[in-house]
Every structure is written in structure tokens, then in C-alpha cells.
């Protein structure tokens, strides 16, 4: 197992370099001349050209590419075109806030989703039906609309929570954005939990357990859940990547100073170093989550062994 994790970790830098190359090429295809954007609309062609030279945009593309990758390999993400500050230092301010939001949202989603899924699988069929309708609903709601409803309810009508903003990480400010992000994921996990439990509830070992007179609660928590947890963990893991995409919208609506808004601004300003930096950090997060999920499989199910 240890060896497996190390091997996976060793592959990360190469995957990230690959990602950086793909993004670099995609950005080359995008129209919009960064030197012209920096020089401003009134600049003469000569000024634009001089900026292009300083930024190295006049070099052949393969040379730019190699320069970029070699800087990257040394951990240098370059300076933002917009703020002219090192991209890495900006991302290190913002990234932890995004991760905090994502983790809190995921935690809420897992707790709520699994509990609802268990309820749906074990209670009367009408409860099951009602919960599954709710779950489909939560999955189909557009995030921005959900966010607005929550803002209106909790911040304007009830005045319980601040509508937007950020303060010291784990503060009441995180509640609304985290809940907004958590709702679709919770709905999804409730469905997965329900389906996964349903498979096992009809299996032979459950019938045996029932036959020997075990209480239904004990059957669920002792025998069924440990078996059902793998599909749930897998769903929670893959869904975390989807949650990262939702963060872009949620950060914009709730004014959460994270990396999603940063990536959005970077794209609209053609701030290439900032954009690549942000995407690499997103990519690294997805890689780590997937590794964590794989390791988790091995821990909960001794039948899964990695070589």
C-alpha cells in the first residue's frame, strides 16, 4: 500500500506538467493578444511590440513553451499580468480558502446525504419516494438560483446569517456558501446510498441476520453499511471534482475570496500565468482526492489490494 501511494505521488509532477502543456496549447488557440491587452487601446504598434519582446511573446512558440515548462519545473509560476505579483504568492493566499469551503461543503453533503439515503432505504416506501424526489430536485436546481433563495431566506428575511463575505475561515460566513455547494452533492449521495443499501438489503447475509433475530439497526450499521460504503466513497470522491466546478459560481455569488473567482478574472483578462496557476492547483486537488479515495477503498475493504 505504502509503495503504491508513493508511486502515485511520484507520477503527480508529470501529470501536472502534462496538464500545463495542454492548457498552454489551449491558451495559444484562444484569440486575444496579451501584449495588446497590457499596452492598452491607445498604444502604438511600437509600444505593443516592445511589451511583446519583454514578455517573450515574440519568441517562437516551442521556445516559449520550453521556457515556460522549465520555469514551472522550478516552481516558478511567473507573475500575474494584472497585479504584476508572483502568481504563487497570490494562489497561496486564496487556495486554502477554497479548500476550506470545499471540505466543509463535502462534509455536510456526506453527513446529510448518507443519513437521508439510509432513511430512504430503510423506511416506508412513501418516505423513500419523497426523499428521492427531493434528491432529484436538489440535483436539478441551478446553483445560482439556490444561492439566491438561501440568501433571501437566511440573510434578508430571517436575518440570521450574513448574505456574503468572508471572515477568519470557519466563521458564520461559510455557512451559506457551504450549504449551497453541499445541497446537490447531498442529493446525489442520498441516491447512491439508497441504491447501494437496497442491493445489499436483499442479499442472503442480511436475510440470515434477520433470521437470527438481529435488530434492524444493527443489521444496517454492522452488516450492510460497511459493504455499501465503497460505492458511496467513490461517488463522494468523484463528486468532489464536480464540487470544485460549482465553487466558481458560489465564490462569485457569496464573495468568497477563493481561487475560483481568481481563475475567472484571470481568464477574462487573458492573465495566462494566473490562469495556468489556478488550473494547476485545481488539477492537483482532483488528483489528491482521487488518490485519497483509492487509498480509502483499500482501508475499508481488505479484499482490495494495490500492487
Amino acid at each position: 500500500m505504502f509503495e503504491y501511494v508513493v508511486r502515485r505521488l511520484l507520477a503527480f509532477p508529470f501529470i501536472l506538467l502534462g496538464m500545463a502543456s495542454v492548457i498552454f496549447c489551449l491558451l495559444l488557440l484562444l484569440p486575444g493578444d496579451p501584449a495588446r491587452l497590457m499596452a492598452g487601446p491607445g498604444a502604438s504598434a511600437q509600444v505593443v511590440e516592445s511589451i511583446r519582446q519583454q514578455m517573450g511573446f515574440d519568441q517562437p512558440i516551442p521556445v516559449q513553451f520550453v521556457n515556460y515548462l522549465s520555469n514551472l519545473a522550478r516552481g516558478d509560476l511567473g507573475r500575474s499580468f494584472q497585479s504584476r505579483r508572483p502568481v504563487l504568492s497570490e494562489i497561496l493566499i486564496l487556495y486554502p480558502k477554497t479548500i476550506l469551503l470545499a471540505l466543509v461543503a463535502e462534509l455536510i453533503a456526506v453527513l446529510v446525504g448518507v443519513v437521508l439515503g439510509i432513511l430512504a432505504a430503510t423506511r416506508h416506501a412513501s418516505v423513500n419516494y419523497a426523499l428521492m424526489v427531493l434528491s432529484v430536485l436538489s440535483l436539478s436546481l441551478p446553483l445560482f438560483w439556490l444561492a439566491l433563495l438561501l440568501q433571501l431566506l437566511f440573510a434578508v428575511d430571517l436575518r440570521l446569517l450574513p448574505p456574503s463575505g468572508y471572515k477568519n475561515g470557519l466563521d458564520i460566513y461559510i455557512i451559506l456558501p457551504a450549504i449551497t455547494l453541499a445541497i446537490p452533492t447531498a442529493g446525489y449521495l442520498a441516491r447512491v446510498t439508497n441504491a447501494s443499501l437496497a442491493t445489499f438489503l436483499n442479499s442472503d447475509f442480511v436475510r440470515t441476520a434477520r433470521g437470527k433475530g438481529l435488530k434492524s439497526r444493527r443489521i444496517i450499521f454492522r452488516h450492510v453499511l460497511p459493504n455499501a460504503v465503497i460505492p458511496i466513497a467513490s461517488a463522494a470522491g468523484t463528486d468532489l471534482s464536480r464540487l470544485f466546478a460549482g465553487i466558481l459560481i458560489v465564490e462569485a455569488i457569496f464573495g468568497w475570496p477563493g481561487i475560483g473567482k481568481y481563475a475567472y478574472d484571470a481568464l477574462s483578462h487573458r492573465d495566462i500565468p494566473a490562469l495556468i496557476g489556478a488550473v494547476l492547483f485545481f488539477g492537483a486537488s482532483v488528483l489528491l482526492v482521487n488518490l485519497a479515495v483509492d487509498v480509502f477503498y483499500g482501508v475499508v475493504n481488505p479484499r482490495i489490494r494495490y500492487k
Partner: protein
Amino acid sequence: MMRPIKYFVAIAVLLALAACAAPAAVPPAAQPTSVPAVQATTAAAEASTSGPITCPKTGGELVLFMSSDPGSLDPAVLANYDQTITAHNFVEGLLRLSPDGQTIEPGLAETMQVSPDGLTWTFKLRDAKFHDGSTVTADDFKFSFERVLNPATKSPKAWMLQNIAGAEDFTSGKAKDVSGIKVTDPKTLEITISKPMAAFKSMLASPNLAVVSKAAVEKSGADFGQQIVTAGPFKLGTWNLNQDLTGTAFTEYWNSRPCLDSIKWRVIQDENTRIVEYDARNLDITWVPPAHWERFNGNPDTQKLLNWARTFHTEFWAFNSDREPFGKNAALRQALCYAIDREAVVASLQGRAAAAGTILSPGLLSYNKDSQPCPHDVAKAKALMTEAGFPNGLPNAIDVILPPWDNEVKIHEIYQANLKDIGVNINLKPTEFAQYQEQLNKGDFDIAWIYRVPDYADPDGFYYPLLHSTSIDGGGNIARVKDAEIDKLIEDGRASLDDAQRIKDYQAIEAGGAKSLPYLPLFHNIYVDIRQPYVMNYVDSPMDMHMYQRVWLDK
């Protein structure tokens, strides 16, 4: 091991989401009617006096929004909207724009003298201090201007100083300094320009040409943008990246301290969130989005809190002069002008725009008050279509490119319906902003919707970029107009220091070349925002450069 395709999908999703997200980062689309504008003007007149700041009450914090983090407040690199709306409160140059945007006031220069030939400009500096307590000297100004010109600074506004004698030798590396900027004593700065230029005065009021402390720039180096030492009414307080930016009152400001203790700009991109925060009294001033217009404008209590600013924005359709059929056919362009129902659009904008009949925005020198927008007259438009050689309409549909902003697309659906009436079919092509700009600069379009906010409050800020032949390919001449007569009028207007002569030149441009409509004027925007009842003496800026040193809080 996860398959690479998944990463690719993740990136694609991220990029796609980023591309579709609402474009709140740019000044909101069109806004304004006419009635309350009169009151606004009166209020503006009171607040724009250049005398010392007087505060009925001192203290408190004003909370405002910005749609994204300005990143850098270095005067030399200021260019985007969020930089402009904040920076003006931190920086100051020789001259400054009055809060109502109508006049140029003395800033750090106590007096300005222009030689009779219009070439030598002499400034006497007043006793003023930088935010770090050091004295502002003429040397700092020379340093600041050369810094903007220096290609290593990559300033987007270096062109404003290109006209100074010796600037070219300096930028090309032939000279160590700019010979046209002379420090005659610590308090006197003498600038020589190579040809007379009236608009130079407006340019000097631009925040890009504000003074920076030479010592501080040398100390901070590349991080100066986040550690600015300037001489405006507010100094830099805490700045949390992508979260908020605070300016605190500079008590040693030459014109006495601002009334507020501090201003805080919060990064709030979403316009609905801003309104929610306004309703919760967490935000003191915010732009009014269309969905909330009736609620605020329909209630007398909130209506009086609305501030109307007739901005210097003008919106146009630009016709590409190099392409058929519009480029060479003035009658066809005029037909479109009469076919468009501007009043319907003003109504759809809830009255927050004024139909435009000129390129120039009202409020600027030479604006002709008698100019009328084309009326909505389908019969006349059809007659012009016949005159243009298309009695049965255009055979092919024409693409109109515009940024992907929902509000703008909705307005264009009205134009689309209007033009159907005269047999002209248009396809709307909402285009991602950077690509849209690229297409504009390269002339890769038939018709483009554009808006123009002048870089400096002078008619030259419209005519030179939009119509001068040297501004083609990136300089702002989107319609690619090449007309020697117009060039000559623009150059004369630039060179003259006599306002009467300049008015004549500019009105001749509107009456002559511009009448053939390389740019079809659509609207002058009116920006309406709402303040909390306790925010006093706030004036909206037509240049998006709101200034808060005279604002005070009655609470």
C-alpha cells in the same frame, strides 16, 4: 490510475464555466431618463467646489463594492474598471477631474502656465506630502512620468506622454531621461511638448499620471502596486486579495483631511448579492440592477436616494469601412439609423439611457445641444434602402458581434426586430470579451457593437481614437475610417488652445464625416446607483472615477 481524459474534462468544465459566468466585471450596460438629472446636477455643482473640504461630520467607514480585485494600484498600470473606480481616491497628479467630471481642477500643482505657442507648460507645486510623510517634489513628478514612459514598466497609458519632447529618444533607449521634462527647482516642473495639444491638460488629470514617491518605488520594486506611496486623499489600508480593500483618511492631505475615516471596497461580483447586502445595510452605495428598478424608483422614499450620472459612455454600432455592403454605402448605414427604435430601447432600459445623435457624449466641450438622434421612421428608412440600391432588403444576413452580456444581447433583439422591417436580417454573435476585442482591433467583423469611455475628459478622447487614421489596428478606430479631411480637423482641434476654434473643428467633424455614420450612435449611458440615506454629498462620476473625500456619513 485515473484516465487523463478526466483531467481534460475537468479543465474543460472549469473553462466552460468561467466563460459562461455572468460578465459583471465591466460597467453595467446602459442606464437613464431625464427628470431627476436636474437635481443631480445641482448637487454635483455644490460638491465639486475645489475649496477646502468641509465636513459637517467626520468619521465612519463607507462600504462600497468592486466586481473584482484591482490587483495593483500602481498609477502607471491602472487600466481596468475596478482599478479606475478605486485608485482615484489614493492617487493625485498635477491636475485632477472635479467629482462631477465637468471641470479640471488644480491638484498638486498650485498654478499652471502655458506658453503662448502652447508648447511649454510650467507647474508650480503646492506644499503636499506623500502618504509616508515625505514631501512631494518636482523630481518625483519627473521620475513618475519617465516611469510611465519606460517600456520596462509596460504601462497601458504610456501613449499619453508620447508627445513630450524627447519621449521617443527615451523610450527607444537613446536618451537616459526625457529632455522635455525639466525640474527647474524642487517646486517647479517644466514640460515641453513637441506639438501643441489642448487635451494634454485632461491627460494630466488622469490617475495614470499621478505622482509616486521615487524613494518608495525604489524600495518596493515589483511589489509597488500593492504598497503604493502616493499623495491622494486616502492612503492604503488593509488589502485582502479578492476580498476587500480599505483606504484610510490621509490626515495630511493638502486640501485638509477627507470627512470619512475610511472607505472599504468589498469584492462582490454578483449584482443580486450587492442588492441583498444593500438591503441588509452592509453596503452603502450600489448600482441598481434592472430587476430592482421598480422597487427603488417606484417608492418616493428610495427614489430620492438614487443618483443619476450622465456618463461619458457612448454606445455605437461600428461599420467596418473595408467591407461591403456597409463600408462603402452611406445611404445603407443611414437606413439602419432610421430603422432602429431607440425609444423602445430606452424604455426597456427603464429610462436609464439617452438616445444618441452624436459620437461625443453630452457634457464635453463642443457637444452640440441641438443635435438630434435619428427618429424611428420606417418609411424614411425604406426610402434610404432604395437609394442605397437594396429596395428589397439585403440578400444575406449580417453578423453583429458584441460581448456576451445578457443585457446587451436583449437590447440587440430589439434592433434585430427593427431591422427586419426594412429587410435587413442580422445574426447576433455574442463573443467572449478578449476575442471580441481582438476581432475589433483586426477589423474582423461587418458590424460591431462598441462602447467608448474617453480616457480623458476631452472631445479628443473620442475623436482621435475613433476616427483618426493612425488609430486603425488597435488604436480605437474600429470602423477603420481613413479620411484626410477628418484627420486634419482632429489634428487642428488637438493643436489649438482656443476653445472656440476647437468647438468649430469638432462640430465640423460631427456635421461632416461623422454624418456618414461610420459609427451609428445608439445611446449615451446614464449610470444610476442608490445610496443609503445617511450617505451625504455623494456625486456620481461620468468617468467612473467616483471620489469620496467630500462624502460624509450622517449617522
